[in-house]
């Protein structure tokens, strides 16, 4: 019996040691900014060697070229003479770039808060012309991070860091899971529109129309005169509701998507846009396009717009001053959209790409649904549909309206 009691004693002593302490190790990625002087950055805004596509953003078509934004890095120049075999020809390095627009031989792009003007007379020999400071003040970094404003962040070095998270055990007890709650730093903006000089996607935040460039800030519409395209001059600034996101020019109107509704601005006097009509909707992000007497607005959740709706709203805009809802269609997570004739293409986020017959906008019919890709934005032009997805740039032939045939894909390559 004594033997067992001794064993019990040892065992109990073992149990009550510090071995009862729980432990959680939290591993996260820490990002450290890499700075360059502004002089160096401006000197490098030119056509450099082509780079692999790693994080495709917005796109713009001009002639046989596709200008594809590489998020926060610059613009890919893609020779699309043969859509079945697009070729990366050059890369215009523009740190902090999210949006692009083209007018004639001039490319306008954001560089964080600034607007840069690039001469693309020869897209393969692009050169920096000038910059206009603080056109997009909302692109400043937020949260607790304060960037060195005398220089430009050109990259981030990422390091995995492991810390002991056990101290949070007592108050973060959950039967489900813990997940990162860090802030976003700065929210991303973006750009684009339609102009005689080319075609933009529906997620654009700035757009050149005739001799004017319209730029959306988060709460302001700024107009720049392009009498001299290489030297834009501010013509006006119109205050708008907070969280305006996308801009789509249509006839003599600008359709502006915001998180709370769609606004129609009249640009008969292009220097000073005037509000003509608006349509309020549930809080959501909402790219918009227009065609004929109808506007198509996608609403999605999971974004900076806070909304919970995921749908396509078709609006009757016969009267621009009082647009009204014709019909709503349920979607999964719709982003950008494009229309060609009766065909309506919707990038439904993680639910892929959808092609509808929108001959009757009050009752659109799904003709084709391609899954397995996470789509963001699209441009349909000349029977060729260019789609930006998380994993690359796709091109589809839609000359046969009952099918979509993949022509080519430039895959994302994050390893290089």
């Amino acid at each position, binding site marked *: *019996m004594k033997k*067992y009691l001794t*064993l*019990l004693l040892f*065992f*109990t002593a*073992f*149990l*009550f040691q510090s*071995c*009862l*302490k*729980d*432990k*959680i*190790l*939290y*591993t*996260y*990625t820490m990002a450290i900014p890499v700075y360059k002087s502004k002089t160096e950055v401006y000197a490098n805004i030119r056509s450099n060697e082509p780079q692999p596509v790693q*994080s*495709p*953003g*917005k796109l713009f078509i001009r002639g046989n070229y596709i200008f594809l934004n590489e*998020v926060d890095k610059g613009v890919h120049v893609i020779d699309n003479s043969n859509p079945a075999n697009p070729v990366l020809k050059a890369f215009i390095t523009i740190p902090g770039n*999210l949006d692009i627009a083209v007018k004639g031989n001039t490319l306008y792009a954001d560089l964080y808060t600034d607007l840069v003007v690039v001469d693309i007379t020869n897209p393969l020999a692009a050169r920096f012309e000038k910059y206009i400071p603080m056109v997009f003040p909302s692109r400043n970094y937020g949260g607790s991070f304060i960037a060195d404003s005398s220089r430009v962040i050109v990259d981030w070095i990422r390091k995995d860091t492991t810390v002991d*998270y056990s101290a949070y*055990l007592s108050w973060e*007890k*959950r*039967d*489900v*899971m*813990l*997940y*990162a709650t*860090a802030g*976003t730093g700065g*929210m*991303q*903006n*973006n750009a684009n529109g339609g102009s005689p000089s080319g075609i933009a996607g529906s*997620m654009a*935040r700035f757009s050149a129309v005739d001799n004017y460039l319209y730029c959306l800030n988060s709460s302001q519409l700024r107009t720049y005169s392009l009498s001299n395209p290489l030297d834009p001059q501010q013509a006006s600034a119109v205050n708008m509701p907070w*969280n305006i*996101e*996308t801009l789509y020019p249509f006839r003599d109107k600008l359709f502006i998507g915001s998180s709370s509704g769609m606004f129609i601005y009249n640009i008969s006097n292009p220097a000073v846009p005037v509000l003509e009509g608006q349509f309020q909707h549930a809080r959501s*992000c909402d790219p918009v396009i227009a065609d004929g007497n109808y506007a198509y607005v996608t609403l999605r*959740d*999971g*974004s*900076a717009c*806070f*909304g*919970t709706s995921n749908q396509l709203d078709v609006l009757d805009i016969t009267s621009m001053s009082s647009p009204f809802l014709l019909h709503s269609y349920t979607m999964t997570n719709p*982003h950008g959209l494009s229309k060609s004739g009766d065909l309506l293409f919707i990038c439904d*986020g*993680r639910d892929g790409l959808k092609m509808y017959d929108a001959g009757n906008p009050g009752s659109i019919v799904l003709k084709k649904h391609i899954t397995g890709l996470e789509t*963001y*934005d699209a441009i349909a032009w000349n029977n060729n549909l260019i789609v930006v997805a998380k994993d690359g740039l796709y091109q589809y032939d839609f000359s046969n309206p009952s099918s979509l045939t993949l022509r080519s894909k430039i895959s994302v390559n994050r390893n290089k």
Partner: protein
Amino acid sequence: MKKSLLLVCLLTVSVMISAQGKPRFSSQNTAGILVGSSDNAPQLQTINGISWQNWFTGIGTGIDWYYQRSIPLFWEVERGFLIAPRRKFYFSSGAGANFPWGDSPGYISNGWGTAAPKMIPGFCWNAGLGYKVTVGKQNDAVLLQLGFSNKMHREEVTTVYPCFNPPCPENKASYKYNFRALSLKLGWGF
């Protein structure tokens, strides 16, 4: 590692079978509490296997609510020491896999972005000292066991931060959980 574990299993069973006596099916079903530095939580367990003389081995599972609910699946071995007629102490030890049982929501959309958590099973083990009192004419017994329980698992979370236009910035993080608790169990065996 797997080969070694299999070898130990086979060896234990073969020793038991080759020894004198007749192995018989045996089951232990217990309920108890887990007491640790961050939580006090209930647990349920059932271990089923074969018993022979003073040995018992079996496969166990149950529900462990300590901090994050999980289902352990383990192989258990016990060795008893008769201290009086119908009463014995026994040492027990087990090891296996710990499967987190969270309400995985897949895509969580909270207006501030989307988080996709993924729970990954880990290792678990236990050791303890028990007291067994046989009741009735058959092999029914009341079990009382004090022990140590250690369970581990991992959680990988990909959070897509909100932005107006995609692709939105992503963050990948992981949590490595290692929970240690004192285990007190009371149950019925046969």
